């Protein structure tokens, strides 16, 4: 393909140079010769840019179209006249107006070079047919040596095309074609506006410079027809010459601007590798969005175990389907994807860049995916831990209720029966009275123990009266004097209250057992959506949170609620237990 491109470049160069050189062998005013040189130079620049675009973006047809346009351009607008030979004159006659439809094709299909809308395709096709129809009368009947009003200079020794049959005055039919140009250009402008409106934000940014240039060209064309009646007549106006030349140069220049954007992104793809090396986890999306210049970029990571795409937080995401205005590029092997990029469809035209960026981000994405997987698992573990604690609480409550409604009631019933039996006895019936009294004493002891057991399992007062009442009740029972510094006024939610309660309860038990303290301070407060629990004693300290199942269990309980527990217990400095548990706002 490179050979073809070089051939096109060389051929285009030869055409332009040949046309310029030919200018000096015909008898033409010097102003025409000078303009010709400017025009052919501009055409060559255009051809060169076209070939360059072709080289850099082989997947796009924009390059060949651009080159074709600038090859066709010097062949139109009467330039043929300077090539006084049958072959070039035939070719020039045939292609005289083909630059127009090529131009429409180029602009409407940019940047892919492929027309997507049916309307665009119909318009461009019509343009090509129109151009050929326009050429036919000249090919067959036009003789520049005969007098005609359209071209000011009459060429007496000009060559005729191979296809010339006989002279006919074709000015009339050509005028009709000329006037048809105006609506065609207007339709073109309308299609251009439609293309801009319909394109995605990213696509619009790419298309805009060229579209503005094309708009400029189109509008100057309309003005030209409005001012002079026919495009061919403009050849006489110096001002219009420069406007036309500038307009035609605006096309390759704006294309080059579009290319510059592409070049920047491409070098950014290389920078991406370096950037990701130092990127903190979770920033791969941002880096990719910058590299691909698509702020709307979304990253979906593939989890092979769950067989689904998830976002950075591990939540499953649905990839958009075609026709939703978003495009999806899956990175990695099709049977074992790593991630998917959900992006602006305009990026599909830059598949090479997408692939390069995807490859560059591969390791970082693998990393990110592992993290998403971990987060998902962590979330599951966290949820199940919370459920276990909650289920445990539920079970404790049920046990307490069963004891209360079952064993305790039965024992009381038994006690009453004993009492009744005793009242029925005749005095000192073989010592049975004493035996019954003894049984009653035992029964009372059993009831006391059972009551404390039930309370230890789950105090009813916590569920019914809330944390403050339950903590005050704990303080009443503590064998070490307790000072309650503060208690929350509002309820904190059942799991949090249970955790806070058992934390205080277990801590007070520990103080009584080990701390040799003279006083304990207890404080429960709600601040910034967290329940803060503090139990502080003035005892010997030296408690080891790693030892003993009591503190361990408390830490687990607090962690299950996403909270933190710290134990500060240096020897001789007392023990301070501090927990923070999120409890909503």
């Amino acid at each position, binding site marked *: 393909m490179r050979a073809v491109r070089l051939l096109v470049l060389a051929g285009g160069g030869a055409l332009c140079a040949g046309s310029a050189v030919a200018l000096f062998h015909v008898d033409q005013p010097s102003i025409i010769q000078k303009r010709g040189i400017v025009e052919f130079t501009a055409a060559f620049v255009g051809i060169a840019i076209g070939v360059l675009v072709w080289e850099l973006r082989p997947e796009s047809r924009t390059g060949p179209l651009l080159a074709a346009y600038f090859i066709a351009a010097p062949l139109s607008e009467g330039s043929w006249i300077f090539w006084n030979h049958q072959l070039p004159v035939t070719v020039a006659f045939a292609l005289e107006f083909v630059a127009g439809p090529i131009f429409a094709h180029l602009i409407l299909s940019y940047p892919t070079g492929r027309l997507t809308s049916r309307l665009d395709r119909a318009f461009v096709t019509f343009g090509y047919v129109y151009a050929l129809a326009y050429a036919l009368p000249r090919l067959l009947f036009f003789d520049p040596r005969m007098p005609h009003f359209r071209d000011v200079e009459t060429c007496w020794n000009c060559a005729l095309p191979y296809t010339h049959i006989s002279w006919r005055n074709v000015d009339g039919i050509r005028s009709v074609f000329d006037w048809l140009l105006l609506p065609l250009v207007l339709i073109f402008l309308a299609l251009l506006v439609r293309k801009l409106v319909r394109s995605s934000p990213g696509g619009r940014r790419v298309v805009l410079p060229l579209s503005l240039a094309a708009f400029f060209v189109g509008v100057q064309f309309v003005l030209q027809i409005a001012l002079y009646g026919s495009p061919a007549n403009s050849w006489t106006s110096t001002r219009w010459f420069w406007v036309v030349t500038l307009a035609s140069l605006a096309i390759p220049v704006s294309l080059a601007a579009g290319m510059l954007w592409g070049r920047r992104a491409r070098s950014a793809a290389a920078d991406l590798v370096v950037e990701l090396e130092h990127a903190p986890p979770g920033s791969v999306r941002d880096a990719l969005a910058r590299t691909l210049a698509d702020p709307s970029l979304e990253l979906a990571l593939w989890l092979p175990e769950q067989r689904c795409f998830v976002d950075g937080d591990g939540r499953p995401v649905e990839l958009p389907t075609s026709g939703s205005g978003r495009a999806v590029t899956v990175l990695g092997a099709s049977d074992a994807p790593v991630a998917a990029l959900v992006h602006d469809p305009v990026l599909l035209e830059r598949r090479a860049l997408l692939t390069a960026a995807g490859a560059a981000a591969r390791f970082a994405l693998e990393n990110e995916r592992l993290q998403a997987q971990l987060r998902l698992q962590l979330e599951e573990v966290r949820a199940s831990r919370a459920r276990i604690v909650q289920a445990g609480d539920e079970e404790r409550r049920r046990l307490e209720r069963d004891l209360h409604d079952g064993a305790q009631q039965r024992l009381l019933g038994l*006690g009453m029966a004993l009492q009744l039996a005793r009242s029925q006895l005749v005095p000192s019936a073989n010592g049975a009275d004493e035996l019954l009294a003894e049984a009653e004493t035992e029964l009372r002891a059993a009831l006391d123990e059972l009551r404390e057991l039930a309370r230890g399992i789950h105090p009813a007062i916590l569920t019914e009266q809330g944390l403050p009442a339950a903590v005050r009740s704990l303080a009443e029972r503590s064998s070490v004097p307790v000072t309650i510094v503060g208690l929350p006024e509002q309820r904190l939610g059942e799991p949090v209250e249970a955790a806070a309660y058992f934390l205080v309860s277990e801590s007070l038990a520990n103080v009584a057992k080990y701390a040799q303290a003279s006083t304990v301070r207890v404080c429960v407060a709600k601040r910034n959506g967290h329940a803060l629990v503090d139990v502080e004693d003035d005892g010997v300290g030296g408690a080891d949170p790693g030892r003993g199942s009591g503190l361990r269990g408390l830490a687990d309980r607090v962690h299950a609620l996403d909270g933190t527990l710290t134990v500060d217990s240096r020897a001789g400095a007392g023990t301070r237990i501090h927990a923070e548990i999120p409890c909503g706002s």
Partner: protein
Amino acid sequence: MRVVVADDSVLLREGVARLLADEGLDVTAKVSSAPELLEQVEANAPDVAVVDIRMPPTHTDEGLAAAEAIRRRWPRVGVLVLSQYVETEYALRLLDGGEERCGYLLKDRVLDSGQLAEAVRRIGGGGVVVDPELVARLVGKSRTQSPLQELTPREREVLALMAEGLTDRGISERLFVAPKTVETHIRHIFTKLGLPESAADNKRVHAVLTYLRA
């Protein structure tokens, strides 16, 4: 004295009713839930309602809520709440509704029919009853620096009986001392503890319990 017994456990309901009847009280109705209890009170206006704290449908503190409702709507009806929980909170909640015709006893007291019947009679007579075990715990509670330590053993005894809801006369009968002596003790206690004199009148039990609990 007409008594209504409310307990969702048949065993205890019947047992308590029988014990009270044996003690010479007139048990006019036995019910198993709070709404039934309120109906009975409304219809028959008993002197005292003996209520289990935990009853259907939620098995939490309906009994207490029903007791509070009765005290609000029928102030002449006394309420004795029986509970398996030794919780000051519940006793105070009951006393919040006024310091007469009410009591909070541990359910274990049904094992001593004399004590139970006496409590019902005291409440029917306008008095207050707080379970001795609860009071004993409050009095015996460990404290750092407290004016309680300045009380004489006798004064402590008087304080506990006050907390149990006994009147001056009740205390003097219990301790076999002259009412005048009891008054002196009580004045000393109030001074030593720094309790306001006004608390002595109609909010005495509440004030003492709150003091002991702190």
